[in-house]
């Protein structure tokens, strides 16, 4: 009972904080929209080419937007000592960390999901692949937050961890990118995508269970 109260209190607090410093929500979302709108301008009047690479564009942009937002996950808590207090709490750190990751996804991942259909239409993606695009984003972006959290937890104590963070995290993002991008592409051609979706579900479940453990351990290390 107490644990669930702490869990929801952490989510609530992080959502209130995000609402009060709005740039945290706006930055990754703006980046996502800007990158995608620049592609048609760069490629020129070749609607077929654009349509063919649309799944890749959307997914790569989502991935980079997620990377961009990662640092805010633990940075301010680390700087103002809230993280110390969280680690001192008698509740298991893994659960509190999971709450923070969920809040982070609600703030940075979910908005991407909401604007994605609009951008997909903008790139000329066929309507029947929209559902698959949304499904892959729904399954994939939480994985980006979960895996990213491990990297951030490891680098939050370093003064300039940005470069190391991307080196650590990007390779682990690749499977998500491959399966999600491929699923959307196949759906565009009218082929079944069950296999890719199942693998994405598996990756999500695995990340959900396995990521909080190293995050908690890495945060303890970062703080010492």
């Amino acid at each position: 009972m107490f644990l669930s109260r702490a869990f929801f209190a952490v989510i609530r607090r992080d959502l209130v904080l995000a609402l009060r410093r709005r740039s945290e929500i706006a930055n990754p979302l703006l980046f996502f929209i800007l990158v995608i709108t620049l592609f048609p301008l760069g490629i020129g009047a070749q609607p077929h080419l654009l349509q063919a690479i649309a799944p890749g564009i959307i997914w790569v942009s989502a991935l980079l937007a997620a990377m961009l937002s990662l640092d805010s996950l633990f940075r301010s808590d680390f700087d103002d000592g809230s993280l110390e207090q969280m680690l001192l709490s008698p509740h298991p750190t893994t659960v509190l960390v999971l709450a923070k990751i969920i809040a982070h996804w609600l703030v940075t991942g979910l908005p991407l999901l909401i604007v994605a259909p609009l951008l997909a239409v903008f790139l000329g993606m066929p309507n029947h692949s929209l559902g698959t695009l949304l499904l892959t984003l729904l399954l994939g972006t939480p994985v980006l937050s979960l895996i990213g959290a491990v990297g951030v937890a490891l680098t939050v104590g370093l003064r300039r961890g940005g470069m190391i963070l991307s080196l650590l995290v990007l390779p682990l993002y690749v499977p998500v990118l491959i399966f999600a991008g491929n699923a959307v592409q196949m759906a565009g051609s009218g082929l079944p995508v069950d296999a890719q979706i199942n693998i994405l579900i598996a990756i999500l479940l695995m990340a959900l269970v396995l990521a909080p453990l190293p995050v908690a351990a890495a945060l303890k290390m970062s703080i010492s």
Partner: protein
Amino acid sequence: MRTTSTLSLEGTGLSCIRDDRVLFEELAFELVSGQILLLEGKNGSGKTSLLRILCGFREADAGAIRWCGDRIEDSRFHAQMAYVGHLDGIKKELTVFENLKMTLALSSAGQYSIDQALSKVHLQGYDDILVQALSAGQKRRLSLARLLITANVLWILDEPFTSLDKQGIALIETLMTEHCANGGMIVLTSHHDIDLPTVDVQRINLS
């Protein structure tokens, strides 16, 4: 209320080495209910390191810390301690009340309600003020209010008097005296000489 007779914090053979420099070696102490342990020493002598070892943030290079006879990792230590360090651990974008509410959610409720604690640290009426609008001393008092609203026996305080004025210091000394009279214990570092006639104060000089 509290079972005061059995509680103890004991350190044996503690040493801390940082960057090949020995900060302290073979340090031992024992603290029981109602006592204060004051760590003294010049800057860089390892006071904060010792406090962080006590909190479990880092491990001692040798020695062990026991809470009521059990190693701190194996006991209910973290449910019975509270720490106020250099960093306030409060969010400046949240209001005073929201910050304390969060503290309460992370541990179990203690002797005082949030309102009572705020009036004890002379911050009554500030509940819905954003913390970024508070002065440094008020922030300090707010982070000390955390000690009052959670259930704890041991206070670990790193320079609690920083940025407090004379009244603030007197206030914290009163709270510390009350806490010890209720069977609590306190470990603190301070440059300010504490003046608590009724409390048993042990001193360790690390330099």
